């Protein structure tokens, strides 16, 4: 099927440094040249040149990290999903992480506007001994009526396999009208939802104490749950009323994890 945007990249470790080899992009997706905030780790910015996602769009991103490679992937701005009258927007991503590699995915939020339908499916295959930090967040666009929840639905699947065994399968479905998104168990009065997954050999059993204290300091601004995945990994779910709250929480957790990996705090310098 014809893709609206395709992005493929492979990160390879050469001595102390990771280089981004075999970058390919087509259609509405582009990547800027990798930025080295730290010598051993490129940060790659992907961008959407079309301004926004519309109905029937299909996007695919494919990321491969070879052994011991380190890379951070982020976006240059939020993904905006506009009205999709005929067909939903479909976005897929596959991530493949070889032993010893470290991949961090820190995208801007997804903003779904009036009557948007958006489906994303991310499949991550990691070898034991690699590190994954995967985040995402979803927010409503604001329509003229001032009503925040006018998208049709957002559906998101994230599957994490470690050595080919399924360790976590996150399947979120947000559908405002039918389910009264504000209600108990749904968004509980909040407008924004964020998620974070960390799987890493450097994630010690005591992560709940360290991150729990950090997350507790956001109790006034967000409702947060965290738990341990089947393989000992970390999962965090956040409800809040502003993008920056979710971004801050994810950034703090990311920097905490980066210190465990001897990486400096993340710098994205976007704005």
């Amino acid at each position, binding site marked *: 099927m014809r893709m609206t945007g395709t992005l493929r990249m492979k990160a390879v470790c050469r001595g102390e440094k990771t280089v981004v080899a075999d970058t390919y992009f087509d259609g509405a997706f582009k990547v800027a040249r990798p930025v080295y905030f730290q010598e051993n780790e490129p940060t790659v910015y992907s961008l959407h040149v079309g301004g926004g996602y519309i109905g029937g769009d299909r996007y695919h991103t494919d990321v491969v990290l070879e052994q011991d490679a380190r890379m951070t992937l982020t976006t240059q701005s939020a993904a905006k999903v506009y009205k999709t009258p005929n067909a939903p927007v479909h976005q897929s991503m596959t991530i493949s992480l070889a032993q010893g590699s470290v991949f961090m995915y820190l995208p801007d939020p997804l903003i779904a506007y009036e009557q948007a339908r958006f489906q994303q499916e991310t499949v991550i295959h990691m070898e034991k001994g690699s590190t994954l930090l995967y985040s995402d967040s979803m927010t409503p666009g604001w329509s003229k009526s001032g009503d925040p929840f006018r998208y049709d639905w957002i559906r998101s699947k994230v599957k994490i396999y470690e050595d080919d065994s399924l360790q976590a399968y996150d399947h979120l*479905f*947000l559908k405002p009208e039918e389910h009264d998104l504000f209600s108990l168990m749904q968004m509980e009065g909040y407008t924004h939802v964020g998620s974070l997954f960390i799987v890493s050999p450097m994630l010690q059993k005591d992560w709940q104490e360290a991150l729990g204290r950090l997350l507790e300091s956001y109790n006034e601004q967000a409702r947060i749950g965290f738990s341990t995945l089947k393989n000992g990994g970390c999962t965090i*779910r956040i409800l809040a009323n502003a993008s920056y709250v979710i971004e801050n929480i994810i950034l703090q957790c990311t920097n905490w994890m980066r210190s465990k990996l001897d990486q400096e705090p993340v710098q994205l310098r976007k704005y």
Partner: protein
Amino acid sequence: MINPMLSFMQLCDSNFPSGAFSHSFGLETYIYEGAIHDAATFEAAMRIFMVNQMAYTDALACRLAYEAIENGQFDDVIELDHVLLALSLSKETREGTRRIGERMAKLCSDLYESPLIDTYYQRIRQKEANGHPSIVFALAAHHLGAEKTDAIGAHLFSSIHSLIQNAVRAIPLGQTDGQRILLALQPLIQDMAVQTETMTEDELGMNMPGLEIAQMRHEQLPVRLFMS
């Protein structure tokens, strides 16, 4: 000859020792925080829980397991077992469901002469499967010659019955209130059992962020009656 109706009554009885009485699957968080505090708030919460969570997990899983058994595809049952475990992001809910599944599998393996239930329990013991109540229920219902829709309805009924019994203890509610809610939810159970037919496999495990957070936050509650 085993009578499916009487057997269902036994499987769904609150005295059936599945261990479900020790689990609230996040509802205790709402009770602790006060969002669920009486019969009306509990019944409203149950309806959301049923339509948006149980429908896509318990009901759909029971249907898919039943169909795989019917088609003689036991490997698909095992695959479903692994997917169901991974779908549960909260540790307590994941562990609780697994434990109930394992206990039910052992019990049903002791009660019925069903090679498939025996095999499923053996696979759990060998750590090749995890155990899930929806799968055991489908296996038992199929063994008893029950129809698929009845199996789904009975499975939902038994899970809901346990949750109501737990709420009666935890909120607390009167016993009559509990029974009244169970009766009031019956038409919804029936609808859900029928609606499950129209779902696609792709919808398995769809979940709500608020509920997941409540299930995760249960781990940190200072006072707990339940294990999840």
